[in-house]
């Protein structure tokens, strides 16, 4: 590598990291937090006895899982203005990613709830709990533990998926790399550099996942 390339690499590092911390990270965190709430509500709706709720939740998951995330983002950002809804790129990205996390996450949460043995529901019933009390006190705390590994997986995927927001003009880390490439004409260098930073982020998250799983293993052995 010649000096010029090293110089470009060093000069880009700070702007890329900045874009990562200031735009990729908040987009990821906010979408995941909102998506998780949506995922839990959707999972409960799918498991509920009210057929309208069940059908609505099933329809939502069907649509989101059956269409590409990139296409969904395009519909939200470039499509909706045709019907008079113009969204800021950040808001459009939040909506797109939240819907995605909500749909995929709901399947994880639903599976986790269903993995809790029937005996736990019966024990909750036998001490006089309502369905809501049983869910909140007995089922969800156990389901949460079961969901941690697959949800952490979704979270790590989301970090990388946020690069799709570049295509709807949101200047997160990947879009920043594209901008720098446009002025330096060093695509291999810049895209490898941004890949390295994604790798760094995801490595930290994997370590956090590992820590969380170990803490939650406190009660286990069933």
């Amino acid at each position, binding site marked *: 590598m010649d000096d010029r390339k090293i110089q470009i690499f060093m000069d880009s590092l700070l702007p890329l990291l900045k874009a990562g911390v200031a735009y990729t990270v908040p987009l990821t965190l906010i979408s995941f937090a909102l998506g998780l709430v949506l995922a839990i509500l959707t999972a409960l709706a799918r498991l509920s006895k009210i057929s309208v709720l069940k059908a609505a939740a099933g329809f939502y998951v069907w649509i989101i899982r059956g269409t590409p995330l990139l296409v969904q983002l395009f519909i939200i950002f470039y499509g909706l203005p045709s019907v008079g809804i113009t969204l800021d790129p950040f808001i459009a990205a939040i909506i797109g990613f939240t819907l995605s996390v909500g749909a995929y996450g709901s399947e994880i949460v639903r599976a986790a709830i269903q993995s809790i043995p029937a005996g736990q529901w019966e*024990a909750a019933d036998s*001490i*006089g709990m309502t369905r809501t009390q049983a869910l909140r006190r007995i089922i969800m*705390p156990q389901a949460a*533990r079961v969901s941690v590994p697959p949800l952490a997986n979704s979270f790590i995927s989301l970090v990388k998926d946020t690069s799709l927001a570049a295509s709807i003009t949101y200047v997160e880390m990947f879009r920043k790399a594209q901008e720098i490439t446009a002025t330096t004409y060093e695509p291999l260098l810049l895209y490898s550099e941004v890949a390295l930073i994604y790798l760094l982020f995801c490595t930290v998250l994997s370590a956090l996942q590992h820590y969380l799983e170990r803490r939650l293993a406190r*009660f286990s052995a*069933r």
Partner: protein
Amino acid sequence: MIEVRNLHKSFGDLEVLKGIELSLDKGKVLVIIGPSGSGKSTLLRCFNLLEMPDEGQLKIGELALNFDKGRRPGTREVLALRKRTGMVFQSYNLFPHMTALENVMEAQVTVQKKSKEAARSRALELLDKVGLADKAGNYPHQLSGGQQQRVGIARAMAADPEVLLFDEPTSALDPELVGEVLKVMKRLASEGMTMVVVTHEMKFAADVADQIIMVDQGVIIEQGSPAEVLQHPNHPRAAAFLNILTQREI
């Protein structure tokens, strides 16, 4: 204390209970025996509506419920009935994310809305009663089967039920752990707890039961005192079943 009239229950086309009639006075122990698949567990689970009867009447304490085809009691009635009963399960079903103490506190705090302090002191009292005061801080997976089941008994008693229901409480236990659970149950019986016990422990039945019923193919084929049922069964299938159990003990 318990009155059951003409109780019917089917799973699909299979009629599991075919018109059960029984009654039990306060402070008495009823033991239900019978071959597997006889409907004895289903009958027990009807007492706290883990299974919903299709037809008949069920009265526990002052609360009477009627079941008819197509008409089921509402949530409020179901919860009211469950507050009058406690259940001990074959596979314990303790809450694995809670300590022994928290397991016994749970119904008091969440259902009875007692203060945490009151619930804790009552829970410690109950754990002491089942001989596990020193295990209050342990999680279920840190306890032996016998200890878990004793926590299960303490949990079932925590909300002061009028009747305790035992669904084969020692069937999942290693043989050397059965005694400690039966001992606790015996003591509760001697203290005047009203109990309904589904079990294969014939010695327990002979020693502790005030009344034994034998269920077979969804009907009661023997009913009476331990001496009557265990020593002088009238029904040929009852005699055959008892014979098998006695031979197993030799």
